[in-house]
């Protein structure tokens, strides 16, 4: 929403503030001003001058020498190349030392262009005659300006006066951010009312007297509304003996300030009233309305209609149409039809000011793909009572401008009159909600200046129909607060029952995950939750993989962002690829993010969201580095039992010989492995890369921050080193399982200290060496305590085909 200061002042005549004061005060009372523009910021020392004499330039065919009267004692000599001036013309003259906004071509120069005295082909020139473009505007808004050349004033312009003022350029344009609830403020009058209350000035809206001749409009037109829900009100008036002409300059200027191009008096009046009252209007050529009848009803599916911009539109039965006795003549609230538009030869017009259902207009406008100034206003949901005020204002302007003869009366289809509402008002409650101590009288003063009246008997506030946004006491509290000033409300802290601030257990575990990953050199990455369905192919998932059953976004930003991820790898591998391509060395990343597993397709319930800790790396380190990170994390969150690794994870995107499920107490916590070379290639990672994925909900079943101190051993340990020859197919995990199961109560720890395959070892075997430590809590172990256990262990090894190395 934009307004010029001068148009606001038309209704708040006592207003006298600077642009900054206006901006600050309106912003703090709820009509936020995004920015303002002083139209004359770059214009200086520009007067109305009259060309008294023109001589040709002795040395240049295209230049002329003008003697210009600017109301000073002496004439000023100006050389110009303009083709359109003659003696007697009154023109804008910028004197030497003054500034203009830019060039002929309409290009503006920040800060303006300073005009200096100078010589043009040897002849002195002491200023410049200006085109409308040089004054920072365009012919769009000053249609009377010539296509090329100097702007020429009307004959009655006063020589020596400011040209800036005469052109209405001594104005300020404000751009507001109006919130969607304040439908009334999408109009000049709505803003002006807020301005008046903000600055405690009188609000003087236009006074509209009764208009029209002695005839009865009902003899000219009949209106039937078939769908009253979609059209709560339809007002129609008729104007005959139309005299199409340009609208007066003051109206043109105000329209220009709203960015609306003046066209002719009738079109300009409808636009003017739309801006002033926020009520869109439409003018039909009554001659083209068949059977002098208007019927408001929905279109049929597949109907075609040509709007006045010449475009054919395809409709359906939810789109409300304005029809005459034979055919549609306009799409309600959006755009009129080509078949009924007014032309310069129009004799009689039918004015329409209606109120349409905002939601319907919004949806229709979307469907048709046509959004207009009118539909933009209607979709907010207008006040039906405003329609009558607006149509009468339009007729008043018709009469004032002598644009036609208004026929008496108005056709009004308004079955359910919209009344204002009454809201119980308790000043104590308002103070209670705001935490203030504002006097009742002060509150009522604010409310009444907003035309919200108070009934002492019922203790109710009457809210006029244009303030649909006010429904309850909290709404009234806001009205009070914004004029009392948010700044003036005290600042306190909540009292009452104290509460404990905390993180949930899940979030605490995630925090440990972040810390551990970072200690291990992994930096935190963030990836989108949605991705392309192609990722499953990229990750070599089989055609029937369950992971392919993903939630699909019905209105995605594109196919690449169209499904909710069911595996957390694509983001990680893409990021590794990005880093690899940018030649970053030794990259380690982690991510904590959800995957989304649908419970059914199509979804009727929310999916299961499972937080995944994903680690990825390339460069320094290998599979076992990654395994180390996993184990560090498990230890930190209290998973102190044996972690098992099952090599049969069956992940297509991992190297078949270098992957494993991570198991804890016989449950899968996640998996890790080396990225399959084909997948690495798909993601353009040119090195071996490793990932680990931990399913956090699974981990949470075991995680704990409880710790119990275990006494530090007092008695010495006994260590046995054994060296074995092991069939290649046996995993060290199996050997360790044996050590654990046979180790007995004194087994304290064991560790692999050598593994070797090669010449000295027979074919199909490997050499493996373990150091096994035994200790008792309460005594020093005897030799035979250990020997018997070791024998058990060795016997179990034999069963696996393991031989002791001699």
């Amino acid at each position, binding site marked *: 929403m934009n307004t010029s200061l001068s148009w606001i002042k038309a209704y708040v005549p006592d207003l006298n503030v600077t642009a900054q004061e206006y901006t600050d005060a309106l912003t*703090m009372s709820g009509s936020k001003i995004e920015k303002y523009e002083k139209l004359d910021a770059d214009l200086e020392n520009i007067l109305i001058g009259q060309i008294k004499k023109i001589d040709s330039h002795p040395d240049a065919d295209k230049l002329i020498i003008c003697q210009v009267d600017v109301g000073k004692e002496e004439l000023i000599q100006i050389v110009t190349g303009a083709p359109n001036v003659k003696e007697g013309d009154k023109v804008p003259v910028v004197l030497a030392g003054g500034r203009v906004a830019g060039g002929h071509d309409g290009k503006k120069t920040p800060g303006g262009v300073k005009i200096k005295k100078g010589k043009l082909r040897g002849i002195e020139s002491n200023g410049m005659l200006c085109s409308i473009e040089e004054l920072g505007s365009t012919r769009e808004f000053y249609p009377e300006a010539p296509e090329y050349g100097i702007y020429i004033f009307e004959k009655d312009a006063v020589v020596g006066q400011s040209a800036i003022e005469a052109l209405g350029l001594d104005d300020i344009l404000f751009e507001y951010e109006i919130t969607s609830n304040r439908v009334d403020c999408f109009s000049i009058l709505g803003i002006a009312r807020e301005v008046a209350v903000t600055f405690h000035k009188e609000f003087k809206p236009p006074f509209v007297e009764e208009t029209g001749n002695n005839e009865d409009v009902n003899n000219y037109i009949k209106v039937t509304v078939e769908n009253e829900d979609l059209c709560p009100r339809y007002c129609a008036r008729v104007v005959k003996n139309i005299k199409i002409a340009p609208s007066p300059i003051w109206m043109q200027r105000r329209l220009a300030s709203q960015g609306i191009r003046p066209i002719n008096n009738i079109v300009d009046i409808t636009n003017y009233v739309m801006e002033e009252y926020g009520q869109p209007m439409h003018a039909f050529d009554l001659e083209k309305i068949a059977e002098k009848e208007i019927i408001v009803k929905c279109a049929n599916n597949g109907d075609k209609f040509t709007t006045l911009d010449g475009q054919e539109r395809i409709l359906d039965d939810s789109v409300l149409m304005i029809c005459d006795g034979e055919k549609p003549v306009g799409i309600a609230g959006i755009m009129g039809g080509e078949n009924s538009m007014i032309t310069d030869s129009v004799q009689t017009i039918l004015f329409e000011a209606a109120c349409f259902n905002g939601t319907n207009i919004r949806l229709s406008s979307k469907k048709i793909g046509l959004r207009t100034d009118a539909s933009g206003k209607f979709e907010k949901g207008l006040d039906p009572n405003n329609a009558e005020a607006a149509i009468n204002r339009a007729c008043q302007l018709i009469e004032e401008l002598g644009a036609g003869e208004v026929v008496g009366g108005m056709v009004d289809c308004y079955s359910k009159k919209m009344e204002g509402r009454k809201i119980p008002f308790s000043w104590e409650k308002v103070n209670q909600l705001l935490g203030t101590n504002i006097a009742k009288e002060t509150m009522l003063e604010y409310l009444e200046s907003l035309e919200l009246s108070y009934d002492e008997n019922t203790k109710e506030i009457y809210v006029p129909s244009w303030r649909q946004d006010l429904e309850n006491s*909290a709404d009234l509290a806001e009205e009070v607060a914004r004029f009392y000033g948010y*700044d003036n409300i005290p600042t*306190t802290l909540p009292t009452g029952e104290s509460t404990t601030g905390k993180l949930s257990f899940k979030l605490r575990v995630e925090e440990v995950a972040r810390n551990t990953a970072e200690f291990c050199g992994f930096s935190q990455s*963030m990836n989108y939750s949605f991705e392309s369905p192609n990722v499953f192919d990229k990750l070599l998932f089989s055609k029937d993989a369950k992971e392919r059953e993903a939630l699909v976004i*019905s209105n*995605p930003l594109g196919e690449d962002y169209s499904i909710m991820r069911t595996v957390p790898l694509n983001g990680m591998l893409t990021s590794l690829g990005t880093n690899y391509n940018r030649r970053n060395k030794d990259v380690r990343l982690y991510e904590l993010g*959800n995957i989304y597993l649908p419970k059914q397709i199509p979804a009727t319930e929310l999916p299961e*969201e499972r937080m995944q800790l994903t680690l990825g790396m390339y460069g320094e380190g290998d599979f076992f580095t990654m395994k180390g990170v996993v184990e560090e994390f498990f230890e930190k969150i209290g998973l102190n039992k044996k972690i098992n690794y099952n090599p049969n994870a069956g992940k297509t995107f991992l190297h078949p010989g270098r992957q494993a499920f991570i198991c804890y107490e016989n449950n899968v916590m996640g998996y890790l492995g080396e990225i399959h070379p084909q997948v690495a290639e798909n993601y353009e990672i040119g090195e071996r890369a490793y990932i680990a994925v931990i399913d956090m909900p699974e981990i949470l079943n075991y995680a704990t921050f409880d710790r119990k101190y275990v006494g530090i051993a007092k008695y010495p340990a006994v260590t046995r080193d054994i060296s074995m020859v092991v069939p290649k197919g046996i995993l060290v995990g199996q050997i360790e399982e044996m050590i654990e199961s046979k180790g007995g109560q004194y087994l304290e720890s064991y560790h692999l200290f050598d593994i070797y395959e090669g010449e000295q070892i027979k074919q199909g075997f490997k050499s493996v060496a373990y150091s096994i430590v035994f200790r008792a809590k309460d005594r020093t172990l005897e030799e035979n305590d250990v020997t018997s256990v070791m024998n058990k262990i060795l016997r179990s090894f034999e069963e696996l085909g393991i031989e002791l190395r001699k």
Partner: protein
Amino acid sequence: MKGEREVKERLNRIQEEAIKKIQASKDLNELNDIRIHFLGKKGELTTVLKGMKDISPEERPVVGQIVNKTRETIEELLEETRLQMEAAQREERMKNEVIDVTLPAKKNKLGHRHPNTIVMEEVEGIFIGMGYEVVEGPEVEYDYYNFEALNIPADHPAKDEQDTFYINKNILLRSQTSPVQVRVMEKGELPIRMLAPGRVFRSDEVDATHSPSFHQIEGLVIDKNITFADLKGTLAEFAKQLFGPETKVKFRPHHFQFTEPSAEMDVTCFKCGGSGCRFCKGSGWVEILGCGMVHPNVLKMSGIDSEKYSGFAFGMGLERITLFKYEIDDMRLLYENDNRFLSQF
């Protein structure tokens, strides 16, 4: 028979000889040899002691005393010399151990937290300190929680404004963290002081200032006698803790469907302190969050008696704060995961 005198003389000789040898010794080995020579099992002093049997019983204690004294004297000198030698040796060794302290460090190569998380944790910490519980809610959400329960009925224009991603008519990607408020209120455990950080989604094309996926942090307080003044006080305190004690705040009237009265909060620009700069576009203020008193309709829909209870809610965009705080000029950097970016935080 050897007399006391003879023994004394002998001991004197031994002592003098020992002292001479100790003083002339060059290293610890030599010193050790000296110790063995005089004090060892077959050493000279032991030999003297062995000769004690030839001394009359009356004289024995006296001679014994002398022998012990001599031993002590020699031992003391030996120990003293050993310590000196060791100290000298240590000095010598350290002289040879001088290192170039400017050689490169051996770092542990720690990883780095995402800047978003750093800010998120800071905000969480501030509110945890004020008694707020951090809670989470689903990212894929029912339309009901994301809109309807927040006083945004079907076909309300506000639904269009948010450019929401839908799975189907009833299920969407949450466009705000506010649905978590509703889920907490529905549980009916009062009072409530909660903070709900999390991922939200809106169909904005990716550019320097937009992302279809970003984070919000939502806060909610419900209790008896909660006022707009409490809202102001709480958020002013928050701003001071996050942006520094000099920070000022400004509340401007605004509109949100689920709060009334509503406000937007600006803070004095943390780059220029309010004098106006490039970051705040010269205004001195930066818009940081939206807030307001929980709308009575929202309380009602969640089953809370709006006559007894009131509350306030606020919501802020995490990325916005992150970008400002670290002077990051392009939001895309936050989701590209370039190591050269991440390792700066």
